[in-house]
């Protein structure tokens, strides 16, 4: 049984917030130039560097911290397999992603290859620690199985990334590099983040709504369609399959996201708490928006495959998925996860001994709502700027997005001082 609050998740959450702030500051510093170039061709050193800072330094770092915090809880207060290994993993992964981002920026193939191996080593340590914890507990539910699936796909995404990093250094695979890139993106975006967000929501979303008695049958359909989508997509990318194979992968993934949004609505219908908090409400809005876009893309890509596969559309879709749904959901949940973690750490052992604040007193829900609304307004303007190739809209959207994101990170991070 867990007898004290682990500080391990703090390191991941704090580092994730710092990476997030660094990304936004960097965006503010050279706003128009990088976005205009990114919209034309995202495959540039600065684009790779920023992408890895955001996806590994922020989203994956926060996600790892959330896994370290929630897996012992979901397993009813069992200890991690090894907390010490968790700290080693933190150091290895942090050095790996930071070096990788620097290597991309410097366009230094040896740095990219070396730090890609280190980042992958950090992922392997994480997978071993979480895998051993889950296997030892042997308590398989839709949540724990989904978490295991997410970590499994993270390992595969990391392996594909490491192979690409080595290819930068040694040029072993020639044109196969591009196919590997497709598999790397699909495994990471749909596999790692898709499984993690959906499965953790199966636990957290009802908990914050105090929902009881809701049907859970759709959870397995979500996981099944997601797995079908990932595992139709990966070989399609690796073997350069015809467009209809990619379309089937998209259709399966879109089905998973639509069912996920429907399931969240089921949970809301069975709620016994009127207000779950702004972050949780936003996570549902994002899921519905994401499902709508995915469902729209299915017929659109069947009729106009060239438009959907164009670079510009890929940037819009990728940005909306990674920054919009994945990043937005992480931001939204952070407004709950950080107060939870901090309250448990600082006030948990004082409860019953003295008067302690409630979590609502640690963070103002109205401010969370206002900031998240401004963030997603900025995201919408930026996506429109990409779509219409308007540098002005791109600058305005990203300026708003970056500035408000910094405020939000600071506001949520300030909970650690309460």
């Amino acid at each position, binding site marked *: 049984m867990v007898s004290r609050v682990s500080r391990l998740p703090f390191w991941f959450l704090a580092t994730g917030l710092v990476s997030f702030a660094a990304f936004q500051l960097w965006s503010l510093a050279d706003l128009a130039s990088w976005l205009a170039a990114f919209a034309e061709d995202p495959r540039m050193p600065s684009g790779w560097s920023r992408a890895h800072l955001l996806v590994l330094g922020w989203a994956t770092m926060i996600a790892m911290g959330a896994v370290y915090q929630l897996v012992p809880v979901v397993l009813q207060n069992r200890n991690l397999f090894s907390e010490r290994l968790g700290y080693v993993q933190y150091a290895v992964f942090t050095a790996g992603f930071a070096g990788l981002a620097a290597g991309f920026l410097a366009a230094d193939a040896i740095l990219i290859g070396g730090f890609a191996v280190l980042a992958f080593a950090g992922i392997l340590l994480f997978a071993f620690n979480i895998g051993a914890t889950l296997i030892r507990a042997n308590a398989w539910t839709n949540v724990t199985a989904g978490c295991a699936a997410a970590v499994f796909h993270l390992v595969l995404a990391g392996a594909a990334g490491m192979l690409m990093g080595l290819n930068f250094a040694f040029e072993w695979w020639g044109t196969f590099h591009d196919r590997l890139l497709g598999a790397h993106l699909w495994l990471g975006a749909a596999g790692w983040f898709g499984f993690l967000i959906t499965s953790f929501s199966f636990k957290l979303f009802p908990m914050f709504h105090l929902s009881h008695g809701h049907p859970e049958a759709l959870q397995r359909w979500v996981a099944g369609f997601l797995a079908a989508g990932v595992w139709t997509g990966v070989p399609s990318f690796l073997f350069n399959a015809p467009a209809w194979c990619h379309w089937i992968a998209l259709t399966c993934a879109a089905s998973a996201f639509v069912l996920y949004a429907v399931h969240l609505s089921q949970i809301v219908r069975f709620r016994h708490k009127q207000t779950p908090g702004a972050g949780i409400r936003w996570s549902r809005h994002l899921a519905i928006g994401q499902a709508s876009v995915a469902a729209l893309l299915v017929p659109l890509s069947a009729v106009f495959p060239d438009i959907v596969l164009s670079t510009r559309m890929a940037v819009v879709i990728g940005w909306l998925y990674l920054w919009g749904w994945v990043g937005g959901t992480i931001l939204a949940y952070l407004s709950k996860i950080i107060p939870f973690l901090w*309250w448990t750490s600082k006030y948990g052992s004082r409860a019953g001994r003295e008067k302690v604040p409630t*979590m609502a007193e640690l963070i103002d829900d109205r401010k969370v709502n206002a900031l998240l609304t401004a963030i997603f307004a900025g995201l919408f303007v930026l996506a429109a700027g990409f779509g219409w190739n308007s540098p002005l809209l791109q600058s305005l959207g990203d300026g708003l997005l970056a500035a408000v994101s910094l405020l939000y990170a600071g506001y949520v991070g300030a909970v650690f001082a309460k």
Partner: protein
Amino acid sequence: MVDKDTVLELLKQVYDPELGVNVVDLGLIYELDVEGGRVRIRMTLTTPGCPLHEAIVGGVRRVLERHPGIEDVDVRVVWEPRWTPERLTPAGREALGFF
């Protein structure tokens, strides 16, 4: 020496910090036995795998242990029967905006 009412009032000082409702009005206390200075409680939480398990159960234990009339506290967490919203008291329902 304490009586049941005193113990219940003490327990009302322990809140689920996320829901903002105390453990009595949430209906988390299944059984309460008071014998002289000995208090035995059988309680649950709103969901198995609750992130606040240690804080809430520890809070129940601590709030009782600091009372001068209580010498021994035994708190047992059970998952059967599962907690349901029907266990909320009218005050708990009002605090949650239950409808």
